[in-house]
């Protein structure tokens, strides 16, 4: 019996070894969990591999980690959404070029009851002021991600102390929304993640979707070869492909069928 098991095990391991020896060019794409969890990349990246034969290793981490990976040359190209941090990286010389190419919007969600009266707020800052005043619970990602950076900025601009009941999950948007849903409390989220999880977070409803000020811009970042060692040719091929009209068209259609609304708007 154990002999049979051993043989089966060997067979599977050998099969694995054969698969590993087919060498293909590969590049590492560091991106944010919110973009990855929306499912967009799984939809469009296979096209890139089909057309160029280049394998893409997509690593979904928080924006903070993605930018760090770029700085260290542990990634070849970055897809992030934290304009301020990105500009810092440009100033430090790690990023050669930043190309914003698509966006959606941040929204504030919370319980239908809305004890803090966020529904009546004119801006995100006012909404946060109301939440703080009511001492309502607010769930933050607390992970240095693009969404987290924006949330912190809104607190700063609201010139009010952070609410007494401030919860940090340190996790991705999906998890954070689930936590907020369980507790029936407020949080800031990007529209795409909220839509993709809608039936699982029935406790939460959109309370503020103030369009212009909460714009969530996604950019593709090209690393600076003078400061960072990375696969420049592959990275350029990827960026060129991403910004092609046909790729952008495909992105602009993503989500329409499933959610009735496109998850990303091309700039």
């Amino acid at each position: 019996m154990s002999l049979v098991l051993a043989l089966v095990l060997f067979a599977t391991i050998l099969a694995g070894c054969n698969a590993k020896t087919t060498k293909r060019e590969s590049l590492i794409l560091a991106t944010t969990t919110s973009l990855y969890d929306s499912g967009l990349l799984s939809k469009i990246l296979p096209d890139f591999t089909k057309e160029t034969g280049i394998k893409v290793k997509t690593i979904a981490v928080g924006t903070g980690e993605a930018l760090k990976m770029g700085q260290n040359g542990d990634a070849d190209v970055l897809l992030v959404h934290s304009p301020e941090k990105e500009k810092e990286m440009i100033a430090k010389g790690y990023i050669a070029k930043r190309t914003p190419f698509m966006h959606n919007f941040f929204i504030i969600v919370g319980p239908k009851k809305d004890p803090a009266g966020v529904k009546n707020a004119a801006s995100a800052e006012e909404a946060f002021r109301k939440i703080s005043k009511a001492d309502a619970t607010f769930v933050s990602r607390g992970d240095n991600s693009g969404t987290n950076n924006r949330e912190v900025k809104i607190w700063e601009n609201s010139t009010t102390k952070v609410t007494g009941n401030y919860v940090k999950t340190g996790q991705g948007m999906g998890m954070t929304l689930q936590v907020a849903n369980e507790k029936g409390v407020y949080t800031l989220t990007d529209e795409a993640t909220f839509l993709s999880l809608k039936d699982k977070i029935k406790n939460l409803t959109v309370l503020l979707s103030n369009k212009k000020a909460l714009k969530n811009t996604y950019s593709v970042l090209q690393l600076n070869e003078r400061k960072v060692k990375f696969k420049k040719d592959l990275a350029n091929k990827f960026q060129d492909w991403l910004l092609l009209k046909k790729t952008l068209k495909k992105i602009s259609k993503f989500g329409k069928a499933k959610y009735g609304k496109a998850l990303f708007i091309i700039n």
Partner: protein
Amino acid sequence: MNLFVEGFIKAYQLIFAGAPSVLAPLLLTIQVTGTAILITVLLGLPIGMMLGLKNFRGKQTLVTVVNSAMGLPPVVVGLFVSLVLWRSGILGSLGIMYTPTAIVLAETIISLPLVIGLTFSAVQGLDVKLNWQILALGASKFQLYKKILFETKIAVAAALIAGFGSIISEVGAAMMVGGNIEGQTRVLTTAIVLETRKGNFDVAIALSLILLSIALLINVLLTKTQRQGANLGGGRAWI
């Protein structure tokens, strides 16, 4: 409660349909865990046995190190292996970060101390007079080791079960050094984390059921071997 039922139903559908989101992680888990446990056995058994049989300066220190390493948090192993394998790390030029090889490396590091430590204590527990007797009967060094392995079959099987269990269930290291890349380094545990994060609880449950089934199957087979060892060892009592 509804979530559970929905999950189980979807789980059966996915498994029997052979959905790639479920089969690919399954295959990779078997390959990676199998390779890691194989390397661990080839290295760990001899080292553990030699530790148990020989006396040398610094043995006590080495034993302490091995015992402490048994409790190494897998996520810490993942972090340290990442630091080494990242392009910015010492072995960065090898380019094995975010490949199944990296996961095998991390998992071997996690299970090795367990197998060494438990084999060592099994061998150490043997009466030294037995060794003398075997040698007195004209056995070569190699034959001695073979016989000792046979005598400690039960405990060694336990070491393998522990080593295997520690790596098939771990998620921290696999996530960090593998990157959970679809179709490339997504194993059952990291797939469960992702599907849960995305709210696809039915898929997460399906993956969990598969993982539990494999762990159960392997352990049943290993335990059977353990029992056979007990019977062959001259009818030693099964307690």
